[in-house]
C-alpha cells in the first residue's frame, strides 16, 4: 500500500519553491499506475521520493504500509529500501560486472546464501529472456538487454513495490511491449508497480489507472488513459 497525504518536497533551502507540492494519492498493494506528465513535471522526483532517495519536507508518506517520518533513521530506510525495486532511466548497471553479478546485487546485499542467489539469478534472467547472456559484461549489452537486466535486478528480491522511470526509452516497439507484459505480470502477482513514461502509445496499449503531474502538482488521477 502506497499513500501520500499532502506531501511536498523541496530541494535545498526552504526559500526555494517545492519541486513537488501537495501530492495526495493512494495505490493499493498489487496496483499499477502510470505516472504521466510533460518533461520537468516532477515524475522522476516523485519516483525518487517513493524510492526514499529523498524524504518529504511536508505531509505524510506511507510506503508498503510503513509511515516514513521526515527524520526516519537511516537503518530503517535501508530496510524499507530492500523491499523496493527501482528501474532507472539510465539503467545504472555496474560496468565492471557481468549480467548475473549485476542482477545478484540486491540479494548479495541481503547476505542471502550464494547457492540460493545463483538459482534466483538464473530463473529471473530466463524470465526476462537473458538466460544465454549470464556471463556477458554489462558494457557489452544492447540498450534493450541493459534495460531487461535493470528490470531483473529491480525485481529479483521480490519487492513489494517496483518503480520504473521511462523504462522504454531505449527500446524498440516490440521490446517495449514485452516489457509492459512483464510489468503487468508483476502487478498480477501482487507487486505494486508505478511506471513513469511519456510514451502515449505504450499507455494506450496497457490501460491502467494513471497519475498526471504538471509543475510538481497532481492535476489528474484517472482509472485508465483512453
Amino acid at each position, binding site marked *: 500500500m502506497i499513500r501520500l497525504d499532502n506531501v511536498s518536497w523541496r530541494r535545498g533551502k526552504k526559500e526555494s519553491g517545492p519541486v513537488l507540492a501537495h501530492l495526495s494519492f493512494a495505490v493499493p498493494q498489487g496496483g499499477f499506475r502510470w505516472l504521466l506528465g510533460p518533461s520537468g513535471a516532477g515524475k522522476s522526483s516523485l519516483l525518487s521520493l517513493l524510492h526514499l532517495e529523498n524524504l518529504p519536507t511536508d505531509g505524510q508518506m506511507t510506503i508498503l504500509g510503513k509511515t516514513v517520518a521526515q527524520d526516519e533513521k537511516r537503518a530503517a530506510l535501508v530496510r524499507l529500501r530492500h523491499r523496493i525495486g527501482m528501474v532507472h532511466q539510465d539503467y545504472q548497471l555496474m560496468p565492471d560486472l557481468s549480467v548475473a553479478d549485476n542482477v545478484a546485487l540486491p540479494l548479495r*546485499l541481503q547476505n542471502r546464501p550464494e547457492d540460493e542467489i545463483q538459482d534466483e539469478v538464473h530463473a529471473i534472467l530466463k524470465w526476462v529472456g537473458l538466460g544465454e547472456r549470464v556471463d556477458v559484461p554489462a558494457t557489452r549489452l544492447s540498450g534493450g538487454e541493459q534495460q531487461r537486466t535493470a528490470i531483473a535486478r529491480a525485481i529479483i528480491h521480490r519487492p513489494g513495490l517496483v518503480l520504473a522511470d521511462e523504462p522504454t526509452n531505449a527500446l524498440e516497439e516490440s521490446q517495449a511491449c514485452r516489457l509492459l507484459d512483464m510489468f503487468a505480470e508483476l502487478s498480477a502477482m501482487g507487486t505494486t508497480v508505478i511506471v513513469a513514461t511519456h510514451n502515449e502509445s505504450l499507455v494506450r496499449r496497457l490501460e491502467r489507472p494513471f497519475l498526471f503531474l504538471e509543475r510538481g502538482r497532481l492535476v489528474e488521477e484517472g482509472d485508465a488513459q483512453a
Partner: protein
Amino acid sequence: MTRPFSGRKDGLSLSEALPDRSLFALVAMMGFLAALTLAGASGARALSARWSGGAAQLLTIQVPDANAPLAAQGGGSATTTRVQAVLADLASLPDGTEVHQLTPPELARLLEPWLGETDSSALPLPAIIRVKLPPDASVPATLEQALSTHVPGTIMEHNARWGERLRALANSLLACAGLALLSVGGIATMITGLATRTGLASRKDIIKTLHGLGASDSYIAGRFAWRTATLGFGGGLSGTLMACLPLLLLLQMAAPFASVPLTTPERLLPQNWQALANTIPSDMLCALALLPFVAAFICWFTTQVMVRLWLLRLP
C-alpha cells in the same frame, strides 16, 4: 552449472578505485619512521631505567699514586699504600656494598678507546675503585671529605649526579619520541583520508547505486575500510621490516652501552647478528610487532569515519 560470480562482486572494484600503491608506499614510510622512533623511545626508556636504578648506586673513586706508601704523605703505617688505605676506609660502608678495584687488564680495556691496545703500564694511572651500594643505601655525607683528608688527592665521583641529568635527558627524548609517533600517526591518518576521498570521488555513482539497492552505511564503509586496512597492514609490515636492518646497526653501535655487551670484534658477522637480536628489549619487539596492526587500525578507523560522513549526504 558454472559459477558466474564468486568473491565480493558489487561493482566497487576498490583495487582500482583507491590509490593502492601510493597508500601502501606512504604507510610503509610511516611504518619505517615509527619503528625507528619506537626503537629510540625504547632505548631512552631503558637508559632512564638503568640510570635511575643500578647506576645511581655506583661510586667511582680515583686514587692517584696508588701504590705510594701512605706514611710518606701522612702519619700512617709505612707498609700501607694509599689505595689500601682507601679500601680500608670503604670497609665501613653499609653491609652489602660491593667494592672492587679494577685490575690492570680491566683498566686497560676501559682506556682502550683513548689509548688503543698499547701497553699502558708506563703511564702513571690512578687506581680506580668501583663501589656499588645496596639498593636502599645512600652514600655517607662525610665519605668524600674523610677520604680526601685521609688520602689526599683522592677523587670520588657519585654517578647519581650524572644519573639525574641523564634521566632528564632520557625523559625529554621519550617526550620527543611520543610527539614524533603522534605526528607519524597524524600523517598516516591524513594520507588514508586523502586516499579514501579519492576512492569515494571515483566511485561516487556506483556507491549511490549500491545505496539505492539497499546497501547499508556499514556495508559500504566496511568495504572501503577493510581495503585500506589491508593496505595499511601491508605497508606497516613492510616499513617495520625495512627498519629492522638500520635498527640492528644502531643497536650494534649502542652495544657498548647495553647491559649485555658484545665482546667480539667481528661485530657484523651474521652469527653475531643473532646474538645482537637477542639483546633487543622485549617491549621493543612487542611494539614493533604491533606496528602493522596499529597502522591497519588507523587506516580502518579513518576510512570508516570518512565514508560514513560522506554517506550522510545520501538519504
